[in-house]
């Protein structure tokens, strides 16, 4: 098993954190993991993304050229990464902010109204967690439980107070995806 995930969105959407959550959970589950944030050419106000690998094998290259899963939180990210997804891979689209359909026909697509769900969960900023929940549902890689246990280990102290909302967002994303699927 080797999962290569790219999570991408605006600077403030918490994509790096979402990636770190996956990596941490993978580590706890005894997998090999790696996580690389984009920090390269992007400037303030541009897009941010990160590449996560979770694998049973040793990870040689930590760079992700062809993700098995792509999670996109805004439109520029979809445009940028759509073509790179491995055939029969997955694309999870935040349809709250992306008014465009995925063109690729050889991939599995799931549209999630992440911002809307996040607002319902209690904070519009937890759309990243909604997407993580949805991804869990479609891949079944980890349990909701382990990922929620990892959560407090990757968020900053200051943001621990949002823990409950984040957990709810994960659950609601999970449920949405299960029902949609």
């Amino acid at each position: 098993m080797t999962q290569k995930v790219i999570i991408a969105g605006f600077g403030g959407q918490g994509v790096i954190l979402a990636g770190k959550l996956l990596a941490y959970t993978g580590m706890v589950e005894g997998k090999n993991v790696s996580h690389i944030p984009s920090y390269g050419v992007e400037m303030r106000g541009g897009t941010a993304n990160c590449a996560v690998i979770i694998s049973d094998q040793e990870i040689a290259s930590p760079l992700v050229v062809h993700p098995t899963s792509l999670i996109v939180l805004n439109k520029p990210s979809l445009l940028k990464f759509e073509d790179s997804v491995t055939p029969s891979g997955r694309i999870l689209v935040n349809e709250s902010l992306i008014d465009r359909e995925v063109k690729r026909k050889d991939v599995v697509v799931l549209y999630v109204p992440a911002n809307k769900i996040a607002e319902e969960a209690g904070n519009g900023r937890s759309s990243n967690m909604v997407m993580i929940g949805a991804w869990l549902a479609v891949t079944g890689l980890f349990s909701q439980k382990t990922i929620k246990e990892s959560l407090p280990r990757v968020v900053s102290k200051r943001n621990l107070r949002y823990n409950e909302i984040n957990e709810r967002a994960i659950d609601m994303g999970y449920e949405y995806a299960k029902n949609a699927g």
Partner: protein
Amino acid sequence: MKDPERVVIAKECCKGCELCIDACPRGVLEMSEEINSSGYHYSVFANKKDCNSCTLCAVICPDMCIEVYK
């Protein structure tokens, strides 16, 4: 022909910093409920009739989103 607006705000250019809101001495401007495609709530020319085209909102707007007419 309808009279053009005194204040024209480029919605897509607005970053929602709210500096214009504070700068307007007449409380004309308000923040939107919606977000623009960059994900920001944006400034809206709301209480139009109170505007006297004093330009202060435009003076402070960091992103040149506001044009004022008189």
